């Protein structure tokens, strides 16, 4: 089936099977590798991408469902250099192995888009579906709060 979609602002037309999952198409056919293959059942959040600006699990979306939609990954938000949030992840040592980082950055990007000055609770709620096994979350929450307009906790 023909699939037309925008990925990080670039138009793509490609042939996919109905059973192809968006995550696999992004990684294997398009070469966008930041969405990670984790649990593959919607639990871990490592495959998170933004679809029309909203965070979604690309492991639970058929590629054909993305037809006509805009997909954004961390490659897209950092095409002109790191975003403020990404810089704050660096400053705060907010990731270690980095496997969860693209998903968490995107979940937090969606949060800040809708809620520029989130509370600690808002941040926790926004990333509750993104598992991190390294950091214990505190440095992540700190970075997202710092990116909010409040500027600090």
């Amino acid at each position: 089936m023909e699939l037309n979609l925008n990925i990080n602002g670039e138009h793509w037309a490609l042939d996919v099977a109905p059973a192809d999952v968006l995550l696999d198409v992004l990684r294997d056919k398009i070469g966008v590798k930041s969405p990670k293959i984790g649990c593959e059942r919607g639990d871990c959040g490592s495959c998170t991408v933004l679809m029309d600006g909203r965070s979604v699990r690309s492991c639970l979306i058929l590629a054909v469902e993305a037809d006509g939609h805009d997909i954004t990954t961390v490659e897209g938000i950092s095409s002109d250099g790191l975003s403020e949030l990404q810089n704050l992840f660096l400053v705060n040592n907010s990731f270690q192995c980095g496997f969860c980082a693209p998903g968490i950055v995107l979940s937090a990007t969606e949060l800040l888009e809708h809620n520029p000055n989130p509370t600690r609770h808002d941040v926790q709620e926004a990333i509750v579906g993104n598992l991190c096994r390294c950091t214990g979350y505190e440095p992540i929450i700190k970075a997202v709060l710092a990116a909010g307009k409040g500027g600090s906790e």
Partner: protein
Amino acid sequence: MVIANEFDYQRPSTLADVTRMLAEHPGSARILAGGTDLVAWLRDDAIAPDLVVDIKNITGIHDLKVEGSALRIGALVTFSDLIESEVIAAHAPLLAEMAETVASQGIRNRATMVGNICSAVPSCDAGPVLLAYDTTVHLVGPSGARSVDINDWFVGLRKTARTDDEVVTHLTIALRPHGGVYVKLMRYAGEDLAQAAVGIVAYPDDDYRVTFGAVAPTPIRSTRIEDALHGKPLTESAVAEVVAMVRDEISPITDIRASAEYRTRMTEVMLERGLWAASERLAGRGPAYGDRLI
């Protein structure tokens, strides 16, 4: 891990096309809305349809609005839509309270409430709340439209009153003054299914709906408990009386997520706290919607 089963995919733009496609593939077509259950089941080889019918191009089933004296919620309304809706905040904040407990943002942005009651797993969060709201489910099939009382909707484990060639178009909930609660027991916030859940709606004149999730093969309503509460002011002894009835009304199992005894005891606690909170919310006080009672 890819989807091993091969299937055709269609994205029709009319309900007539949907029901025709479903009728042409009796028992072997599946409806796709948010896909958070369906794609997971495809990945697990738990289902192997010949055809997947994506209904996201259908117009007229996205609505979330007041229509006459009822709230109308289209089949494509997601849990995030419920949380962000001013209509829901004004008329049925209980739906937002429930939606906030569903999985996490990335799931809620896709998963639909109608899909939740069509999947009809025992722990489906929408089940207890929609039962407590006396909801009507509206479907369309090859021979036309019909509606089903939510009390007749859940017919067994993952089984509903929907026939294979029908598609749910929307839900309606009559607008009435009420106070509601949804109390969900889970191991941690985010991505956890209910271990047990209680839904309560208090209507004026001491008229209650009391429902449970994850403690029976389907979400259930207890008319016995409702009758015991009916027409009497809520008192400590009235609450104690119905809390003592819980054990006979539910049939929880022991599994990896909780023991039957724990589910039972916590259901009693949730009913007790929930009844007080629902009745206080009806009176315009009590905990804000979204505040967790456990």
